[in-house]
């Protein structure tokens, strides 16, 4: 996580404030709740990206508070109009860096090279509740890591949620055990 923040800080030339990530085993019914926690009642935009490698797989979900975009545009030196399309550009640029770095960082720790799927825009200017179709998930209990990035002196607030597949949890434990031995 620190590596992702470091990359973001270097790309944007700012201080990135990084709290301790929240690591939890959550059940599928808690997914909506975990998301709802990330931003209270505000409109958000979100990008999702899958990753897989050596039996470990999951999805990274980046949720941006819509209020962040004007400051983000300033930071990223984005000159175009800040309409839905402009915001999509920013969303893609920042998520590439944040998700990419985070997945790569975890991969390096676990000595795994992950393949990354294409990012999917889950929605722009919508309520958190509408991001994810609830129910019907093919898993019951899995590992979730939540990281909240903030940037010093800027009104930028985004949440990165890493959710691993159920099968991955045992593999991660195995890999960590192996690396610690």
């Amino acid at each position, binding site marked *: 996580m620190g590596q992702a923040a470091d990359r973001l800080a270097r790309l944007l030339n700012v201080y990135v404030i990084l709290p301790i990530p929240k690591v939890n085993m959550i059940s599928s019914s808690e997914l909506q709740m975990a998301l709802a926690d990330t931003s209270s009642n505000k409109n958000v935009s979100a990008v999702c990206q899958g990753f897989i490698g050596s039996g470990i797989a999951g999805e990274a979900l980046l949720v941006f508070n819509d209020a962040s975009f004007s400051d983000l545009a300033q930071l990223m030196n984005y000159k175009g109009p800040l309409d839905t*399309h402009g915001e999509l550009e920013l969303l893609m640029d920042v998520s590439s860096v944040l998700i*990419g770095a985070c997945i790569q960082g975890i991969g390096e720790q676990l000595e795994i090279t992950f393949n990354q799927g294409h990012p999917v825009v889950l929605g722009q200017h919508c309520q958190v509740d509408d991001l994810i179709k609830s129910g019907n998930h093919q898993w019951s209990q899995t590992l979730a890591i939540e990281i909240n990035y903030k940037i010093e002196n800027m009104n930028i607030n985004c949440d990165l949620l890493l959710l691993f597949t159920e099968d991955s949890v045992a593999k991660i434990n195995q890999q960590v055990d192996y690396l610690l031995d």
Partner: protein
Amino acid sequence: MTKASFEFAEMHWLMDVLQSIDVGLVILDRDYKIQLWNGFMENHSGLRPDDVHDKPLFGSFSEIPETWFRQKAEPVFELKTRTFTIWEQRPYLFKFKNYRPITGRAANMFQNSTIIPLESIDGSVKHICLIIYDVTDIAINKEDLTKANGNLAYLSQTDSLTELFNRGHWEEEFQREHKRCIRSKNPSSLVMFDIDHFKNVNDTYGHPAGDEVIRTLASIVRQTVRETDICGRYGGEEFTILLIDTDAQSAALFTERLRKKVDDLIVKTDNHDIKFTISSGIAEYSPNFKRHGDWIEAADKALYHSKENGRNRTTIFQNKPPQSL
């Protein structure tokens, strides 16, 4: 096979795969000059690898904006991270014409792309690989779906005869405006009107003629209202218009204009020239209207008063006994 010749054969296969895989592969150096150009790229662009080798990407393909692409590619060089572009952002990087005359329904190929870092032996990134995916089918399907959903929404909200809002959707919109009125205290006025003695029109000239009268009236309503006003067909021959930011007096001017237009109108059907009139009731928002139904009821009362007092007229709802204009 010796080990060396096996490795050579393996290399050969890999090259074959890269050449024939249905995905575009382009390798760029630090100055964005093209170093590799696979079969997919050659076949779709019509340019051979030696046509583009060592040529700058930006000069050769004007459809790729330099600043935009650098913004995606620089982090790949600098941070060794992968970056992605999707067709929703920019439909394509390389402008490749649609090559499927039967199933390809777009003018150009929609593309997603991934830019990956290629590490050299010393660990630094001096080259990047641009991978181009053809996502035309996905993009077309998604656009079709969006269009279909739009059509469905329109159908479920629209009265098919008049093309005004149907009652359900009109009431939803009206409810929203009612809430907005409670907050903002801006005057908005509700107009309800219906066709006088419509049953006679149907009985005398037949239902198709009755439909024609309703259709003509709806088109006059559409020509008379402003874009922000919310018009619906409330019942058979009953219509509702919510005039936003309009007090009762201005609403009366509007309604009288509409009434006179209708009064002067002759609907021509195959066999008959039909004349008809409308009666209206107006209710301006009042804090007394706690529920949106109260507001409708007030306008309905005013409409009833117009009916009682000889029709072809407009009445403004007042808490006192109502008066015709």
